[in-house]
């Protein structure tokens, strides 16, 4: 193990790796800070570039971009009251109020250092718990993996929209798209309609670029109005004041980090949920709950700590079970597979050096996030004022170039654009996109394990309730469905009352 740690330290100190991490944090922060662009979009567009890098540099770059993007979203949340990503939605209420009261610098300072602390705690969780969970996960058979993926899909369908029906429908579309290509058990071609390019199926990166990049571009250009975005000038925050405030709210920091890491580690849900849960709990446990929504400092700290604590923890299900914690980690999983690394229980034991390097990279990117964040806070207003028509025209070009570069085929660009139109329609109808992408990634895992389970059990489903862990996981999924149905019935009653 000490050899692996030494090798990791040697690898991480290589100039190209450090440069990749710095580039990832800078690009992520800028993307997160630009209204309409998100960490997810950035990951999707830049993932193809990592296919041409060595694994450590490529994966470290993407992880750094993820962290930078998650923090960058807080800049728009505080300065213009629009969250850069769904993970920063809870920051808006108090962050924007603080900015309007002339305390934009302090709000951004709290968001930055809250993010850094949360990020560090999330990475520690990954380092401490990943090997233990990996050992435990070796006991998982086909039935358990099938059950855990079904539970993840149910969770994500439940939390990602107002209606469970729409969430499950979106997930089923993802499962349907995943069918295109080659049968994972028998290897026969299916649903290719005689198009040879569909033989290998549709890749997760063109799908993600289409759904999160192109559809967002089309939607933003369609909705564009010539209103100038006004952002306040930010003065550099006083670091002593920031740390004193964080120390004063250490309990909020601690509980938010635990919530963020805990929810982030659950397969299927991530920072989009944890920031609201942490915000709610901070308000409930605060001595001054009446200040929440009107510029409470805890209202900025709690969601930012929670959503960044989830960054490291979300990688636990991704790396160990091969089940992504959220959309960003599903793109990361696509990049890992493209690098020849198959996520699963044996991934860490078979690639120990690389994993210790990635762990080290996570901590290095945390330090770089703090340094880049200090500069970004100063220039955030300038990023935000970039004219939207120029920005989105340029992003459309990057979507095309990024997709084309994966296989150098115009066919992939066509698929990405077609998926972009589907995503645009889904956005307009408030059909959630997240369950679709996660179901697309989980589809082959569900199918392979479901069919293997049936082959081994002689076509009997009884194995699902005969194995306690599988039964428990399916019971959780059933409980989520019942909870959602109960909520829908109650809502209908309130409307009629």
């Amino acid at each position, binding site marked *: 193990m000490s050899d692996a740690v030494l090798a990791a330290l040697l690898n991480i100190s290589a100039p190209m790796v450090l440069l990749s991490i710095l580039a990832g944090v800078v690009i992520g922060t800028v993307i997160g800070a630009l209204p309409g662009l998100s960490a997810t979009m950035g990951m999707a567009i830049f993932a193809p570039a990592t296919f041409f890098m060595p694994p450590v540099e490529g994966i470290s770059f993407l992880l750094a971009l993820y962290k930078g993007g998650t923090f960058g979203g807080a800049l728009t949340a505080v300065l213009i009251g629009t969250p850069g990503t769904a993970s920063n939605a809870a920051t808006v209420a108090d962050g924007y109020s603080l900015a309007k009261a002339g305390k934009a610098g302090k709000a951004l300072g709290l968001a930055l250092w809250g993010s850094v602390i949360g990020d560090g705690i999330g990475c520690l969780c990954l380092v401490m718990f990943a090997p233990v969970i990996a050992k435990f996960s070796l006991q998982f058979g086909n039935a358990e993996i099938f059950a855990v993926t079904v539970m993840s899909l149910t969770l994500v369908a439940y939390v990602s929209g107002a209606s469970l029906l729409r969430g499950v429908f979106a997930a089923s579309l993802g499962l349907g798209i995943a069918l295109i290509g080659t*049968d994972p058990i*028998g290897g026969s071609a299916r649903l290719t309609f005689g198009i040879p390019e569909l033989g290998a199926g549709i890749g997760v990166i063109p799908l993600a670029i289409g759904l999160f990049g192109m559809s967002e571009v089309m939607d933003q250009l369609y909705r564009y109005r010539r209103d100038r975005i006004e952002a306040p000038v930010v003065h550099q925050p006083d670091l002593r004041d920031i740390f004193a405030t964080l120390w004063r709210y250490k309990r909020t920091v601690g509980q938010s980090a635990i919530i963020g890491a805990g929810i982030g580690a659950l397969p299927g849900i991530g920072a989009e949920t944890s920031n609201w849960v942490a915000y709610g709990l901070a308000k409930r446990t605060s001595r001054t709950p009446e200040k929440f929504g009107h510029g409470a400092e805890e209202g900025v700290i709690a969601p930012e700590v929670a959503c960044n604590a989830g960054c490291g923890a979300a990688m636990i299900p991704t790396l160990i079970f091969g089940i992504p914690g959220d959309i960003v980690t599903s793109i990361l999983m696509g990049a890992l597979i493209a690098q020849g690394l198959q996520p699963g229980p044996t991934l860490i034991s078979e690639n120990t050096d690389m994993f210790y390097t990635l762990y080290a990279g996570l901590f290095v990117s945390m330090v770089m996030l703090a340094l880049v964040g200090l500069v970004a806070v100063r220039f955030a207003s300038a990023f935000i004022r970039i004219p939207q028509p120029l920005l989105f025209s340029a992003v459309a070009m990057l979507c095309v*170039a990024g997709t084309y570069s994966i296989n150098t085929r115009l066919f992939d660009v066509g698929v990405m654009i077609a998926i*972009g139109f589907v995503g645009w329609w889904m956005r307009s109808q408030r059909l959630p996109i997240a369950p679709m992408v996660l179901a697309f990634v989980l589809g082959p895992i569900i199918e392979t394990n479901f069919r293997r389970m049936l082959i081994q059990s002689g*076509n009997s489903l009884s194995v699902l309730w005969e194995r306690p862990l599988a039964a428990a996981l399916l019971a959780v999924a059933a409980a989520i469905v019942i909870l959602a149905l109960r909520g829908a019935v109650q809502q209908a009653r309130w409307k009629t009352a």
Partner: protein
Amino acid sequence: MLRINQGGVLAAGCLVIGVAALWLAATIDRHVKGWAFAMPGTTDATMAPSAFPAMILGLIGTLAFGTALSGLLQLWRGREISGLDLPRLLGVSGTVLLRFLMLAKLGFVLTAAAVIGGVPPALGYRNWTAITVTAVLIAVLAWPLFRYGMNVILPQFTLF
């Protein structure tokens, strides 16, 4: 601006998806090549390669009809009325499709310059210096960046 009921749009889209999914489920054997059985050498056809796709397509069809029904309920209640800017919708869709169709013939650099140079003025943004600088930066710099950085030759001009 056209006034449309979003429930109707949702129902129409879901009905198309539902019918397509159920048609595919009914004719799945035509779209799946290979063995008729789960594994070569076995006689068990219940988990044949077409069984799982048929199950998922059936699920999509059922859920699509359920979602269409919720859209029809919205339509019936008359809620969710919103404006549709048809010229803008056609403009954005047309630009994206035209750019894709022209990509193979005109190449990346020319189409990128045309889109960045054309879309912002069409939306009312008239800072020509910023438009020119962005068009040149993205269109001209992206090509060598992909060529020498990632060893990828982006689509080239092949009209003549």
